[in-house]
């Protein structure tokens, strides 16, 4: 299989009539999966990209049936609200593409999602892409570019930086390594599906043999991944690269943050925790494809 998205995923696009909404709907239509319709309040009854537009998600549901996922392209200040609308209508996966979604909106959304057993990817995400099957969001940009950048295979990719997500997958492809699913968890400190959640999904995915992870300083995501590995909750080989080694540290953490995180968040903390837990740490981005190839080679023996 793959995680989060495959060729049969039924998608609704919120904010489908906006600039980004239209361009990325064309991406999803051209690359897969199945975009069924879109929503823009006040534009119900219109058509765009050959798809019907509805005023609300509930309307769309009534008229065209169930969806597996919603992809949100509305302006940042309205994004959490749009996601809540989708979740309330029963959609279990929402991909929130916009950047600059207010933090407290995301905190409220977390609570809302938990109450409805829904999940969200992002905000500030390129989305996720299973090569040759489909994309939710804007990864690749256009169908042609997506076909050029990504190749199907058995390595899962999860990354906290959008651009780096595509870079990893592309450089792996150049080294002859394909991907099962490529996930950009989102660039913000609080996201719906952080690395540990994505690794849980990769652990259960029979199409994924190993995972490449791009981490960054800040948050406890990578340390929690290390904990999962020690607990045996993630057992597949993991190759990790942590960005921000040279970035100024200290100023970004308050005392309270430091007390609560207890040193987690720093470059060295992440690298040490992951290394101790058995991950392969790559020090320079350039070495990533070769190290991944080695890990895959080792699995064959």
């Amino acid at each position, binding site marked *: 299989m793959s995680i989060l998205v495959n060729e049969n995923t039924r998608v609704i696009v919120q904010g489908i009539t906006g600039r*980004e909404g239209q361009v990325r709907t064309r991406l999803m239509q051209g690359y897969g999966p199945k975009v069924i319709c879109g929503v823009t309040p006040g534009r119900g009854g219109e058509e765009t990209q050959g798809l019907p537009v509805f005023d609300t998600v509930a309307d769309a549901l009534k008229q065209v049936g169930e969806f597996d996922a919603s992809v949100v392209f509305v302006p*940042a*200040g309205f994004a959490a609200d749009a996601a809540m609308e989708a979740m309330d209508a029963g959609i279990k996966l929402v991909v929130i593409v916009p*950047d*600059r*979604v*207010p*933090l*407290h*909106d995301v*905190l*409220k959304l*977390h*609570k809302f999602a938990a109450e409805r057993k829904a999940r969200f990817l992002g905000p500030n995400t*390129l989305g996720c892409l299973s090569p040759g099957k489909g994309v939710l969001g804007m*990864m*690749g*940009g*256009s169908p042609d*570019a997506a076909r050029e*950048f990504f190749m199907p295979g058995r390595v899962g990719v999860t*990354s*906290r*930086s*959008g*651009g*780096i997500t*595509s*870079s990893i*997958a*592309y450089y792996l492809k*150049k080294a002859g390594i394909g991907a099962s699913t490529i996930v950009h968890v989102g*660039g913000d*400190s*609080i996201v719906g599906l*952080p690395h540990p959640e994505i690794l849980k999904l990769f652990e259960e995915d029979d199409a994924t043999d190993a995972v490449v992870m*791009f981490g*960054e300083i800040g*948050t*406890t*995501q990578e340390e*929690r991944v290390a904990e999962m590995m020690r607990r045996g909750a993630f057992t597949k080989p993991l190759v990790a690269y942590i*960005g*921000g*080694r*040279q*970035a*100024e540290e200290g*100023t*970004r953490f*308050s*005392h*309270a*943050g*430091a*007390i*609560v995180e207890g040193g987690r968040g720093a470059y060295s903390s992440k690298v040490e925790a992951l290394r101790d837990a058995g991950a392969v740490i790559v020090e*320079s*981005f*350039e070495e990533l494809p070769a190290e991944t190839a080695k890990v895959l080679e080792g699995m064959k023996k």
Partner: protein
Amino acid sequence: MARLLEYKAKETLARFGISVPRGEIAGDPESAIATAERIRFPVVLKAQAFITGRAEKGLIHFCKDADEARAAARQVLGRTIGGFPVDTVLIEEKLDISQELFAACIVSDEIPGPLAVFADRGGTGIEQMAQDGKTKLARRPFDPVAGLLPYEARTLAVKCGMEGKQIGAVADFLVKLAKAFLAEEARGLEVNPLAVTKDGRFFALDCHFSVDDYAAGRHPELGIEIAREIGHPPTELEKIAAAYEATDHRGTFYFLELGAGGEKPVGFHGAGGGGSMMSMDALVARGFTAKNFCDTSGNPSAAKVYRAAKHILAQKGIVGYFASGSGVASQEQFHSARGMVKAFREWPLYVPAVIRLGGNKEEVAIGILNEFLADLPIPVEAYGKDNSAEFCAGRLDALVNEHAPLEPYECTPTARSEDAGEEYAFDIRTGTISFDHTICIRCEDKPCIESCHVEILEVVDGKPRLREPADESAHRCTECLACELACFKAGMRSISIKLPIPGFEEYITRRGAR
């Protein structure tokens, strides 16, 4: 994340009913004395700067009379911290303190949600105290909508050994703190120390308040000038950049001066957070220092990238220009290329540049850079996704070793420099496009028409103009700069796209010299 200076943070806490010492700010020694007299000696004079451990660094002074206040103000004002001057002091009444505590609300990504933290000790060194086994520290997640409930706050107080009346007082304080935290959409709000006076009252003696940049627009009351984490009060150039960015919502442009000196300073132009970080790492690994941080991402227009490039070039003392993002961008890369071409020819570029524009349509982007900048007397190398940031930093290193910065020189900009003989002009989203029709009638191929991907230009009587309805056409201009470059390439230079940055030219003139 943007932070509030102490005085602003305390003003905000006071709005939520939290007690803070009586205080006012001053910007020079004389008004510092006047302020201190109003407040009544003894006072505390505190430098307003984003730095911890101010007391040990001589940035906090206790003054019992005007002479001491003058001396303290003189000593503090104008001192530089991390390369940036202190221009404001806070003068406060001195309280009689019997106990120092610690209280904070933060966002934990592990929960994920808001978390209240309380400790029975506070002040400098709280991080060490928290670990020495003698400090009682308690934490508790709270609801992002309902806030910290009074009983939850009392539990925290009791856990940390508060007794009698203090339980209620601490709980009251924590509930208000959480309320301020949620209402102002803070990222972190930390009161340290939380002082208890001899007569049993609670005061926020110092406060660390960081704001969610993405919500800053919803909180004009906080007076945030630049909604970004910067370790210093904003510089003039940063303010110019931020003021411009606030008016142009297409894509992101963010410019930050890094202040501190260092070997081989480079103007840095990144794209996207992760890619920028990786690219800066690559620079540093080659012994460079980034003079600034700049990010143009989220599908910015060519016009926006042009403005960003001008900010980078405007810095004094750089030895190179390095542009690099993730390398495999989903956005079309030629917009950035055109923006840089216009800026580089106009300024003109005086240091070697390595530009890595990898991803969607990179071949077009690289072609543009090579074609339009080949005649500059300083090298510009363009790369795409198949060359890593490390490789590109290595190339810059080689170029910088061979080419010292140039003195200002003559360079033909892509835009027309002279006034038009017969001007045809229209406004676009963030500027104006002006044609000189006396030049256009001599132009045979009229490549500007073809170059416009939104097809808003047409030729009437041998002259290019907007397709009717003109207003609608002008509105559709994406500020891609293709027409100006096409006209320049044809050797005509009839077009001038003016993209003003309010305050920028004035700043350069005032500061002097390119």
